[in-house]
């Protein structure tokens, strides 16, 4: 069994890049350091020429599907079109060449981008204060919950030990609570798949620090009692945090602040079209109320007259990133929002239209556990006797990236479909056609799928059992 790793394509002495000749006669390592400090064996890295590098990684890319190649309705991931204009923006040498520690006076353009983006996110959320620093959605969550933690610590309220998490939540939510030294407590659902307000009233007490809500939730259902939920929490002195992963359903239609949300995170790589890049980098900017604003990470950007500067919020939780955050993603999101302005609402409208269309057309064949208006995504279940996994792999043979499967956990054999607003009706119709066809395909046939992909189904158990994670 031969692998195709870059290292197999080299030969000792090959070089893929030529550096400028060193034009000074400085010192050598041997003169600076004792022999013991120096490397004895050279690392076993690939030694390859540039043409081989280009061909190797070009061909690797061709083993991948992306939004650019296929419909990619991966629920809760918002795989919308990534405009190339954003890439042009991020590659501008006037930004790409800027060192993060250049004095503010040398980086006014970059600071203006950040300041404007802060304002845009404040407007979209209705919350007055923003931090762009968190490097991913999960870190945005953590930042938010750490801010809540520090609020109580600085208030001397040491009894706030619990964070409530609905059973539909992303796995990151309970993990985040733990990382911030809270106990995560699960809360159940009502018949609509929404947070059970009665249970909430019972659970909330003086140990409650916050509830982490996702709205619309991971079933794609709007949390219709969110305002009441916020009231219950606020009356108990607790905060409402909103996971903004699903903000693509809310733009211009609902502002979290008005629903009582105290702090939330955004995924710039979901809602605001920065590319997912095979799993990152992202940007998990947060927005919060005046109360929590002093706890934001260091730094935030302020404007004084015509000058932009970094400031450390008074009771900052500190830094969550080495520098100012994933500036490249901020630049992309800023550019995206500027290309939409108030038309951002259309983004949400079309995303919700697309999801409901899929819901309407799949219903009858697929089971829809919460068959009412959905928002930007819809959870469905395969017809009796069929497995979500098999349908998913069958979709690959039809040329569609599968939806998210087996999530949310509260729905058996869940398939979470998020079409996004950038897909056309024709694409949805073709996808629906494939879904309906797969519903009729025998399980035996489905179990063989995929047969038209770069690989067939993998032996995942073997990977864990005989761990081999390097060449």
């Amino acid at each position, binding site marked *: 069994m031969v692998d195709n790793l870059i290292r197999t394509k080299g030969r000792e002495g090959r070089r893929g890049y030529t550096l400028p000749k060193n034009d000074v006669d400085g010192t050598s390592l041997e003169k600076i350091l004792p022999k*013991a400090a120096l490397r004895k064996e050279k690392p076993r890295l690939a030694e390859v020429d540039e043409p081989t590098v280009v061909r190797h990684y070009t061909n690797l890319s061709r083993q991948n599907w992306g939004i650019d190649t296929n419909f990619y309705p991966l629920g809760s991931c918002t795989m919308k079109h990534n405009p190339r204009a954003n890439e042009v923006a991020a590659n501008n040498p006037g930004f790409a060449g800027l060192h993060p520690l250049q004095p503010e006076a040398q980086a006014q353009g970059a600071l203006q981008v950040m300041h404007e983006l802060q304002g845009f996110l404040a407007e979209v959320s209705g919350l007055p204060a923003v931090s762009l620093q968190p490097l991913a959605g999960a870190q945005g969550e953590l930042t938010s919950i750490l801010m809540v933690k520090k609020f109580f610590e600085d208030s001397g309220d040491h009894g706030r030990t619990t964070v409530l998490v609905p059973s539909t939540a992303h796995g990151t939510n309970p993990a985040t609570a733990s990382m911030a*030294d809270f106990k995560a407590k699960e809360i159940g659902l009502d018949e609509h798949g929404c947070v059970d307000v009665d249970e909430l009233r019972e659970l909330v007490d003086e140990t409650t620090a916050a509830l982490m809500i996702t709205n619309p939730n991971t079933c794609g259902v709007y949390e219709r009692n969110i305002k009441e939920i916020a009231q219950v929490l606020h009356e108990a002195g607790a905060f409402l945090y909103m996971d903004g992963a699903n903000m693509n359903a809310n733009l211009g239609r609902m502002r979290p602040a008005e629903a009582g949300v105290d702090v939330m995170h955004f995924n710039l790589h979901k809602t605001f079209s920065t590319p997912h890049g095979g799993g990152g980098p992202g940007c998990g900017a947060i927005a919060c109320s005046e109360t929590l604003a002093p706890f934001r990470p260091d730094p935030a950007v302020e404007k004084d007259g015509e000058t932009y500067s970094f400031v450390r919020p008074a009771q900052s939780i500190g830094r969550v990133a080495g520098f100012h955050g994933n500036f490249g993603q901020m630049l992309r999101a800023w550019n995206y929002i500027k290309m939409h302005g108030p038309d951002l609402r259309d983004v949400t409208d079309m995303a919700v239209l697309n999801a409901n269309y899929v819901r309407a057309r799949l219903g009858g064949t697929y089971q829809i556990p919460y068959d009412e208006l959905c928002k930007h995504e819809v959870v469905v279940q395969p017809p009796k006797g069929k497995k979500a996994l098999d349908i998913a792999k069958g979709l690959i043979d039809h040329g569609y990236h599968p939806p998210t499967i087996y999530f949310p956990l509260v729905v058996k054999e869940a398939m979470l479909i998020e079409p996004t607003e950038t897909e056309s009706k024709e694409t949805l119709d073709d996808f629906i056609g494939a879904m309906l066809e797969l519903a009729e395909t025998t399980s035996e046939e489905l179990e063989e799928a995929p047969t038209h992909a770069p690989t067939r189904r993998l032996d995942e158990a073997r990977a864990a059992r005989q761990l081999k994670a390097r060449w």
Partner: protein
Amino acid sequence: MARFTPHTDDDVREMLDAIGVETLDDLFADVSPKFQGELDLPPALSEYEALRDVDRLAKENDTGLPIFLGAGAYDRIVPSTVGAVISRGEFLTSYTPYQPEISQGTLQSIFEFQSIVSELTGLEVSNASVYDGANAVAEAALMTARLTKRDPRVAVSAGLNPRYREVIETYRVEVVELPFEDGTTDFSEVPDGVSGVFVQSPNFFGVVEDIEAASGAAHAAGALCVAVCDPISLAVLEAPGNLGADVAVGEAQPLGMPLLFGGPYAGYMATDQKSVRQLPGRICGETVDKDGKLAYVLTLRGREQDIRRAKANSNICTNQALTALAATVYTALMGPEGLREVAESSVSKAHYLAERLQASGFRLRYPEAPFLWEFVVELPDVKKANEALLKAGMVGGLDLGDGGMLVAVTEKRTKEELDAFVGVVANGG
């Protein structure tokens, strides 16, 4: 209508009919409280206008100049091929490779990244990247607590990048300080009960530290040793795994990522095989498909938040796949000899500059300590010097606020630039 939605009026009509509602508003009947107004955002711009603004603001930044700033982000050469590869749509617009059959490109590139990290650090396993160097350090601090079953409490010195230390503290890890003198850390007295001992080498001030001493001291105290290393330095310095480090972490930015005002970069983490289950984040492993064909897949998922939820090692899920790919392509282009040349050229140039500065009468803060490409020079007025440098078309070093300037020199700097730097500083800049 927004820019990237294909819906015509007819499309909308037909879809609303299929759903069985009258208007788009009806789709939001369940939303409460509704936002009724119009978002107060600047009017929508065309792509052309938006990009003109990008150009305009880009000109408000001082770029395109020789940069002598380092302190965790380095102005190194990025080969053109790196950008060409990572902008391939299939890499750029794919998600975390949950469906391995159609994600082998991303998966194999992650496997290669892990392999490179393992090779450079001399440690057996690596994960599929964390957010950045600072977060790799903080995650390593938490990892030492899990592995030693102690409270998260780590010993660090002033030689650790202060920004890394800040993130450790944000992550609610207690920090105890080790003595730091003449540019290096004194590991002779590690406080009892710490879960980890950190050693950054080269350290924040550019000086090569004694990882072996750090790991010896850590192990004697029942703690783990975490080495924080610039990956370029590992082309020439002994691998931390061979010096007793249990975990090695760092910032991968020097491997082919543009400065971009601080990110996106990528962190790296490596450890030994027995600690693999305490690594946070994704790990990609080798396996076979149904036909016996070799393939790659995310593995040991049981550690992760989407399975273990509150009991996960970390909440990390999205990783830095694309920047890790940049590091992978960069390393492939350079190879071990290219990396060595980058390191050696930087060392040579930095020492040339340090010597020229000393010859001009300036003192190095740690004249006896062995440094690679970064050093502290004492100047009468660092702020003034940096202003003079900017005026002369250069970005000066980091003002340490105490009369010291932390100067970084990469392979990109030319003799002409180094001489110009000395000229400006010597002329009372």
